[in-house]
């Protein structure tokens, strides 16, 4: 079992839809949680990060963490074609003296006009 799992998609939605991207993990030692967005032929860029269970909002994006069920979500409101990208969840912990980050394989999102 992979430590961090994501549905690869692709997920195709119409412009304006609410998008829900999900991630599950198996290791309860993870202490912080990040979402990266990766456009085609580009490197991942940080979208959001949080250290605790609950919701964190930033504009049209909301990250939700449920540590009890080891479940992480990213919600995108009023989705735009410019949101079309691959979304990677990344979980972090302090291990062996450094901050270890484990990535999911990513979910590909397509928002069509």
């Amino acid at each position, binding site marked *: 079992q992979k430590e*961090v799992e994501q549905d*690869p998609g692709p997920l195709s939605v119409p412009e304006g839809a609410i998008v829900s991207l999900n991630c599950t993990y198996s290791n309860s030692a993870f*202490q*912080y949680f*990040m979402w*990266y967005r990766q456009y085609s*032929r*580009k*490197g*991942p*860029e*940080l979208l959001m*990060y949080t*250290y605790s269970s609950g919701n964190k909002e930033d504009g049209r994006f909301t990250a939700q963490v449920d540590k009890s069920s080891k479940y992480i979500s990213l919600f995108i409101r009023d989705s735009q074609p410019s949101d079309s990208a691959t979304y*990677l969840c990344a979980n*972090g912990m302090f291990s062996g003296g*450094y*901050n270890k*980050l484990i*990535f*999911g*394989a*990513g979910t590909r999102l397509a928002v069509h006009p």
Partner: protein
Amino acid sequence: DVKVTQSSRYLVKRTGEKVFLECVQDMDHENMFWYRQDPGLGLRLIYFSYDVKMKEKGDIPEGYSVSREKKERFSLILESASTNQTSMYLCASRTPTGGQPQHFGDGTRLSIL
């Protein structure tokens, strides 16, 4: 803004060649990382470096080595390239404070023929 620059966007090499991938960051970050990204597998850590002249193996170091002679530069070396090393290679850097995120370059797509 953090800038992580990878010297080549696309590279084609032959099996058995020694291959050098270069990465430079401009934010004086102590930590630097090399990942490879393959479809369905996500990002896998090859090597990382806490600071100048320091290096640690990641999850898949076999067939690779690294060099960190200056703080801003981290090189990945494929000692004798093989076809199974065809992949997207991503470099990242970060400050070591707490759970700070990693900042990525745009990647080098390496093909070994």
